[in-house]
């Protein structure tokens, strides 16, 4: 009697929809292990008494004849079948031993089955032993190894996404050495195209797109992350490093440029730039998505179920979702249109190091300057400087209380506050003023932030009794953070080589000379913003150039300037308090030449960086500790309704605990997925690779290893592979793939006998080899490769091959599809520009997911729209013409090829084998018919009676193109 085999299915089917994680009627939940000890609320009796079914309330209730007491209630469902009752009774009798769901228990090394293979070649390694053992039990015989051309086609597509060339096939067929196949596999694993094929798997999980999503769906430059993926597969980054770098590469000690770039994985969430949206709502949506995606990608656990309530059927509690969310809630991104924080990746590989060095320098200098101000501010004894009066243009209704300014009602975008400060009489000369903007409700703002503000400038002046204002010079402003969410620029004279003095140039001398200015980034000189939200008091210190004594009768005035909106709404300061100090260190800091040099260098370095063409890739970065957010549970998943205490980051109790002493951050979280004893990480990974090669996972539900996912078809094989990957191979992805494709199981012929069609139509038992439809990417890449059009260039910005006009048509977004010319027209599919709201139609039709959400499994379809794509899309039309031309050139030995030779060559280029006699004859018939029809066409009329216009192909070329169209559309061309 086994709980997982016999009892859990009964509980799942009949009990947990009321006594589960979402609903625990009568406080009874049969999802958690402690159900065994639970006491019924009404009866006061134990639900289950191990060894004593008659004392167990569960048995009493399911067998009760009293309609009021019976479970399940009569109006819900009929009574349990007697055999199920008997099972439950027996299970309790035998001690009611609970088992965790198989996938939540770490794999145990299985014994290798001892099976006698029908043929020696049927068993090449442990994988085959597990498969043969099951086949023997089912009484099925495995098919023999596939013919070499078919095998090479299969493994070439599987490893590189491209068909083999006829020459590669011929060489393999001719290779008599025992390691002939191994040599092919090693060649393919070493190909630079390996990464291009395997990146697709991860792009689906990473919800990769070249745009940000939602209404405007504007461009986001994330292609360097796609290239990182391709390279990670090519350089065979071990799977644990591969995942850890994507989740938390920025937190690794001495993080490299590549490791920071990898974290773009979790910045591929959508950003909503629609005017008038609530940025906190969409920041939260992105964070929730990261939680779901991280668990889906690493562990195939449906963690997103736990956003609103405890998991309906896995033992994961509601609170645990938010404890995990706390790992991600410290991130600095906030649904800003700029996608802040970003990392600049130079487009030219040889300039990447320079761009990276500049960014490191900028970060270091910024930290120095901000820290200098922050240290001084902390050491300063601040004295309140009360606000005495305030006016604004356009008018604002102010309230003054406790010396603090509060704006009520409506404030225009460009409001300018004139705030009069009452410097206490007799105070020492002022050296610095601190301006502070607190939230309306500081306690609540820590977890539920308020609307932010952007101040464009703070101008100080002493106003004499007669109204005359004398500006007060500020030596330097010190912001409170280096998390610069808002960029401030100023026009500065452009450095010029010629004489800059003299009269301004005349208008007629051209526009270029009239613009001697450039926008310089001066964020470090002035940054006073809580953009987009305010969650803790924010401040800025103005260190005065000289100590200031406000004469009696005069007043100190500060002008607060606004201009910028946050998501199309005004972003004014709503509360303001001011403090002053006479501490002399501020005078020194304000005039500190070394600091000034650093600030100037930052502005210069930013300008240098801007001159290196590249992409600003959104990456993960955590907020400075002082700005950390509090995480609380969202009642029913609603971010507007938080409840309970602040939650520290943590893992669900179902899984192994985090080792003691580790910091509670994302890196700890990422490494936790790879600590020994993790039940899911390795199993989920090997299952994904397996599915790519065989068309179905050992666990068919790639996306769900939980208790409603499908059980594994070969449990021992799954565990063996998982342990092999984790321990022996140390997460080496190429070694794992090599081991699988070298198995006899993978190499089998893919023929469906009537018996197999009846017994195992979906090939879950693996008596035959896989016969999968090409993926969307492979369909395109095959046509281009076979026709010779394919550009083999690796990496770079996404490209726009031809697509029908009018596919892109998005409100408030002016980006247009500009059809590529030259080699970029024929790049591999993985480089095609992917716009979320209007994705490349040819790929959607072949089941590439839109990638709005993490997608673990593509569902292959077979539709008439697919036929229309490969028959009529200009890409395939061009490919057919090129294929016909190429085949003709290559089939002819020094001269003109015969139609038969050309047909055979074209067929081999696409289908990776010679045509059968029937196929060759049928295609030849098509050629002859097409030739006759083309020759019979009336000559097109042209004005001058000249020959056929160049656009119309001559009959032989046209007939051969028709043959090429047919070959590209054969069933055999769509499978691997």
């Amino acid at each position, binding site marked *: 009697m086994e709980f997982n085999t016999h009892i859990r299915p009964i509980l799942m089917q009949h009990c947990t929809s009321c006594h589960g994680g979402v609903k625990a009627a009568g406080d009874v939940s049969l999802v958690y292990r402690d159900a065994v000890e639970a006491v019924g609320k009404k009866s006061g009796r134990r639900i289950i008494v191990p060894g004593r079914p008659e004392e167990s309330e569960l048995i009493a209730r399911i067998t009760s004849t009293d309609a009021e007491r019976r479970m399940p209630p009569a109006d819900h469902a009929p009574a349990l079948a007697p055999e199920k009752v008997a099972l439950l009774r027996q299970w309790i009798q035998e001690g009611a031993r609970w088992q965790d769901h198989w996938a939540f228990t770490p794999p145990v090394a299985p014994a290798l089955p001892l099976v006698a293979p029908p043929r020696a070649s049927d068993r090449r390694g442990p994988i085959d032993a597990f498969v043969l053992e099951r086949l023997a039990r089912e009484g099925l015989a495995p098919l023999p190894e596939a013919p070499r051309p078919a095998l090479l086609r299969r493994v070439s597509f599987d490893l590189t996404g491209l068909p083999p060339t006829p020459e590669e096939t011929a060489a393999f067929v001719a290779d008599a050495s025992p390691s002939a196949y191994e040599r092919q596999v090693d060649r393919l694993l070493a190909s630079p195209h390996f990464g291009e094929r395997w990146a697709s798997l991860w792009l689906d999980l990473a919800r990769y797109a070249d745009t940000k*999503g*939602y209404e405007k*769906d504007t461009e986001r430059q994330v292609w360097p992350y796609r290239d990182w993926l391709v390279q990670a597969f090519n350089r065979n980054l071990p799977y644990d490093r591969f995942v850890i770098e994507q989740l938390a590469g920025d937190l690794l000690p001495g993080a490299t440029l590549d490791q920071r770039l990898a974290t773009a994985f979790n910045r591929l969430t959508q950003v909503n730039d629609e005017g*008038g*949206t609530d940025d906190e709502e969409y920041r939260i949506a992105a964070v929730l998505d990261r939680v779901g995606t991280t668990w*889906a990608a690493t562990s195939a656990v*449906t963690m*997103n*179920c736990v956003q609103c309530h405890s998991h309906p059927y896995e033992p994961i509690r509601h609170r645990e979702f938010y404890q995990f969310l706390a790992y991600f809630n410290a991130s600095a991104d906030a649904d800003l249109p700029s996608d802040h924080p970003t990392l600049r990746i130079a487009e030219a590989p040889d300039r990447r190091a320079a761009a990276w060095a500049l960014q490191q320098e900028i970060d270091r200098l910024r930290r120095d300057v901000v820290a200098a101000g922050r240290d001084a501010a902390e050491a300063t004894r601040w004295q309140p400087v009360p606000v005495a009066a305030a006016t604004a243009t356009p008018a604002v209704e102010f309230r003054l209380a406790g010396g603090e300014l509060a704006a009520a*009602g*409506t*404030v225009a975008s460009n409001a300018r506050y004139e705030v009069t400060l009452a410097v206490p009489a007799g105070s020492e000369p002022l050296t610095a003023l601190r301006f502070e903007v607190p939230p309306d409700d500081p306690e609540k703002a820590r977890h539920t932030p308020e609307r932010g503000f952007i101040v464009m400038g703070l101008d100080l002046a002493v106003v004499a009794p007669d109204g005359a204002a004398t500006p007060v010079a500020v030596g330097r402003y010190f912001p409170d953070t280096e998390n610069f969410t808002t960029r401030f620029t100023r026009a500065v004279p452009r450095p010029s080589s010629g004489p800059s003095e003299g009269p301004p140039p005349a208008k007629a001398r051209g526009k270029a000379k009239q613009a001697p200015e450039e926008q310089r980034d001066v964020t470090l000189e002035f940054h006073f913003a809580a953009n987009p939200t305010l969650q803790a008091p924010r401040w800025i210190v103005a260190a005065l150039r000289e100590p200031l004594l406000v004469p009696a009768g005069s007043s100190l005035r500060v002008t607060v300037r606004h201009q910028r909106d946050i998501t*199309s*709404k*005004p972003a004014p300061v709503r509360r303001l308090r001011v403090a002053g100090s006479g501490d002399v260190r501020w005078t020194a800091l304000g005039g500190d030449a070394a600091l000034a040099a650093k600030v100037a260098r930052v502005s210069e370095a930013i300008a240098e960086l801007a001159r290196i063409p590249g992409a600003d890739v959104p990456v993960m970065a955590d907020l400075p500790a002082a700005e950390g957010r509090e995480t609380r549970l969202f009642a029913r998943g609603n971010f507007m309704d938080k409840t309970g205490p602040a939650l520290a980051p943590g893992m669900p109790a179902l899984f192994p605990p985090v080792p003691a002493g580790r910091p509670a951050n994302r890196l700890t979280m990422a490494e936790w997925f790879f600590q020994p004893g993790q039940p899911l990480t390795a199993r989920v990974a090997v299952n994904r690779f397996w599915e790519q090669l065989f068309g*179905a996972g050992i666990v*068919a539900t790639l*996306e*769900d290893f939980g208790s*409603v996912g499908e059980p594994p078809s070969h449990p021992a094989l799954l565990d063996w592979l998982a342990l092999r990957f984790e321990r022996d191979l140390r997460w080496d992805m190429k070694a794992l793939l090599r081991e699988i494709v070298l198995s006899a199981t993978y190499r089998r012929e893919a*023929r*469906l006998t*009537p018996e197999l069609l009846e017994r195992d139509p979906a090939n879950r038992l693996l008596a035959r080899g896989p*016969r999968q439809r090409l993926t969307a990417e492979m369909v395109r890449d095959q046509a281009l490769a076979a026709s010779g059009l394919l550009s083999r260039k690796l990496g770079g910005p996404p490209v726009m091959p031809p697509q*029908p*006009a*009018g596919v892109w048509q*998005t*409100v408030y977004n002016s980006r247009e599809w500009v059809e590529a010319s030259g080699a970029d027209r024929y790049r591999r599919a993985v480089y095609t520009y992917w716009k*979320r*709201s*209007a*994705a490349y*139609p040819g790929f959607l*039709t072949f089941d590439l997911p*839109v990638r*709005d*959400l993490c997608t673990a499994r593509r*569902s292959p379809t*077979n*539709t*008439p*729209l*697919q*036929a*229309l794509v490969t*028959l*009529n*899309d200009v890409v395939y*039309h061009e490919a057919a013409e090129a294929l016909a031309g190429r085949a003709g050139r290559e089939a002819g030995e020094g001269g003109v090829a015969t139609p038969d030779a050309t047909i055979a060559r074209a067929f081999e280029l696409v289908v990776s084998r010679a045509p059968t006699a029937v196929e060759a004859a*049928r295609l030849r018939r*098509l050629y002859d018919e097409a030739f006759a*029809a083309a020759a019979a066409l009336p000559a097109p009329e042209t004005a001058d009676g000249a020959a056929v216009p160049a656009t*119309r192909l001559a009959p032989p070329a046209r007939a051969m193109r*028709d043959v090429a169209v*047919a070959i590209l*559309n*054969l*069933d*055999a061309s769509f499978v691997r």
Partner: protein
Amino acid sequence: MRDLDGLKRELEHTRLTAVTRRHFLRHCGTGLGALWLATTAGAVDRLGFARAPAEPLAPLPPQFPAKAKRVIYLHMAGAPSQLELFDYKPVLARLDGQDCPPSFLEGKRFAFISGVPKMLGPQFPFHPSGQAGAWISDRLPHFERHIDDVCFVRSMRTDEFNHAPAQLMLHTGSPRFGHPSLGSWVTYGLGTENQNLPGYIVLVSGGKTPDGGKSLWGSGFLPSVYQGVQCRAQGDPVLFLSNPADVSRPERRRVLDAIGDINREQHARHGDPETLTRIAQYELAFRMQVSASEAMDLSRETAAVHARYGTQPGAESFANNCLLARRLAERGVRFIQLYHWGWDSHGASESEALTTGFPKRCLEVDQPIGALLSDLKERGLLEETLVIWGGEFGRTPMRENRNGQEMKFVGRDHHPGAFTVWLAGGGVKPGFSYGATDEMGYNIVENPVEVRDLQATIIRLLGFDHHKLSLPFQGLDQKITGVKPTRIVREIIA
């Protein structure tokens, strides 16, 4: 006696449904069938939507006898003001220009309104109309002739106050990208009657795609074969429908014959049923080239029809799309979705103002909607076709004051709290009004209808319990109505 007949019919229907579903489940062990079998294995009490792999859109009978066989959904993207069309508020007219009461503003999130806005009265005169005396403004005279054919729901509300999320909410049940649209669910559940045309067709006008983009007709986590197919006024009506310019139809036929012959031989050797599916799909594509072009060709209609709709063949217009909707309904297309963009009357510009852009939009849709309803009725199609009209949310009774300032033009901000939709045909009560808002048209005071309630009601009219039109994904039996309590609005069902 009649009751007995009805019962018999229902029993027979139930039996047929069960037989068909079981048949498909048992006999479709590959392709899509296998996929669904795999994903639904172990599940209890679910309907199966599996089909032979060659016919992913084969019609399946609904769970219950359906009142509507198909849907024409007229979505006014940008959200038209209910207060200028159907929700008459004389009190609001009297309060025009006065400060908005603070109770309207507390705890509410607006897209653009800030501070204290002014109330804004209806911008057009209203009058009672039809036998039931439903109030309507003077902007829709053609539509008004059908006022006794339609059922108003004046108490719609939604959770979303920005366009893209609200449109997604309405059409996919979720404010985020990635969920299947209503049309996808319906074609997944019912298939379509005409295999030579897509089962779910989308027609867009107004110069822009709606804010939610193509995700509004996406298939989300359902197989991509159920996504809406956008038919276009320019270029191929369906993407890739036409042969390349220098390929003739006989030439294409010869190629397809060769492909078919070779594929049949391939099947004889490998035995993969997917090969047979592919043969069938190529033939279907060939037929679709003709049937879709024919269906989308408005020049086949008479001058009288064009005069009635106000159509001009070749143009991208709502009028053309209404006429196309009728042609597609006639040809058995299951779900016909129209979007007409440009109703976002904030008052930020002339084209966005209630007094200028808005009446223009009314002119663009009024005559075609009137013509569509008349035409469907005359052809006996209205009874079995559910026509729905509405936006993604409503508009505020306050005048928008962007940045807290009076704006140059008159407009209203987004308002998720109340809006009006109307339904006609397909089993809804004609000449009926449901639900009410308060004197200002701000809050619902009677019979609130959530977006998910409307979805559940549409699904019920098509013959399904919305709980059962579901697919397991990410650990949940996903359905368009989500997990919150949902109510079928039985009161509006005839």
